């Protein structure tokens, strides 16, 4: 029972007074308790229905959407994104690609969806879609293409964005994610300049966050990273978010995707 895990977690708190190893162990134990019954499943089920539902001004489903493996092919698409798409002449991540499909196939207003706050309206549908589409590639290994010149260029731009220091605290992505074995408080920080391992970092998002009861896609994850970096606001599906995803995704080559994962 969900609230029993909380009770169990609370019962573990007195242990925090011991060595820090114990604190880390307790947190690991708490996460293990959470792993059974990941509410991301609720989002996956909703996402599958949405994929097949006739919606929008054109009253059409997303079943002809090409996520990079051909029209309608969902399995295996997630671990190969972001990638170059000839029809849009852009490197796109899952969410920017879904915007394309929602507008071309269903007649929905991509710009309006990009401006919608996370978790509201079509953005809530987006969360469900990315939960299901990523789940369809669960257990597969990250294998982003680096064939097209634009894909290679985006990797280079993403790398520069990753190391770009700015804002009132001089932070870059690398401030937290540039070395092995670092933590913010008790939160382990994956080193995203290389493959941090199976189901860690880029290979763990989208994820369900227990603390807020929300399903976060990579766009929202990056948005919150930039908030904590004290940067200005990155546009939804903007070039910098896609470039960073290429950089992290290519670095994570071979890592097993466990998305949608569960986070504290």
């Amino acid at each position, binding site marked *: 029972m969900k*609230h029993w895990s909380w009770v169990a977690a609370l019962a573990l708190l007195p242990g925090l007074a011991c060595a820090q190893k114990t604190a880390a162990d307790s947190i690991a134990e708490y996460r293990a308790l959470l792993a059974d*019954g990941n509410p991301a499943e609720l989002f996956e089920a*909703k996402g599958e229905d949405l994929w097949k539902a006739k919606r929008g001004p054109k009253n059409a489903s997303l079943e002809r959407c090409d996520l990079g493996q051909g029209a309608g092919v969902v399995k295996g698409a997630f671990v190969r994104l972001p990638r170059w798409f000839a029809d849009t002449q852009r490197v796109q991540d899952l969410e920017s690609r879904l915007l394309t499909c929602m507008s071309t196939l269903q007649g929905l207003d991509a710009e309006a969806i990009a401006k919608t706050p996370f978790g509201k309206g079509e953005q809530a549908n987006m969360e469900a879609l990315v939960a299901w589409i990523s789940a369809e590639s669960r257990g597969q290994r990250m294998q982003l293409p680096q064939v097209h010149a634009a894909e290679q260029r985006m990797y280079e731009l993403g790398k520069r964005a990753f190391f770009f220091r700015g804002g009132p605290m001089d932070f870059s992505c690398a401030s937290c994610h540039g070395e092995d074995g670092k933590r913010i408080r008790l939160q382990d920080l994956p080193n995203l300049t290389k493959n941090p391992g199976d189901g860690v970092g880029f290979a763990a998002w989208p994820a369900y966050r*227990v603390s807020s009861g929300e399903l976060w896609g990579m766009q929202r994850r990056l948005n919150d990273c930039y908030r904590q970096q004290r940067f200005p606001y990155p546009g939804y599906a903007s070039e910098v978010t896609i470039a960073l995803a290429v950089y992290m995704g290519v670095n994570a080559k071979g890592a097993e995707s466990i998305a949608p994962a569960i986070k504290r």
Partner: protein
Amino acid sequence: MADPMRIRAQAAGDKATVRVLMAHEMESGQRKDAAGKTIPAWYINEVSAALNGKVVLTAEWGPSVSKNPFLQFVIKGAKAGDKVQVSWTDNKGDKRSDEATVS
């Protein structure tokens, strides 16, 4: 109408383990919104489970249960092919019932 539950029921020996995920906001009534206004309490307060129509579990829940709750229990004597029904009611009177087949 709330989103459907996800119910999985698996038989092993003379009992079946049932795992249920419910989609619900579970507002405790203690939180405030951005404007500082208290968000009204909204939570599941009754849960029941039945095996082939016979009630095997009832529970009273409150505001301390998490958002999107996960519930797991074991039914003695359940076997593959049996039907498990799970229902909840919340403090606003909203209801939801879903069924799964034991595998």
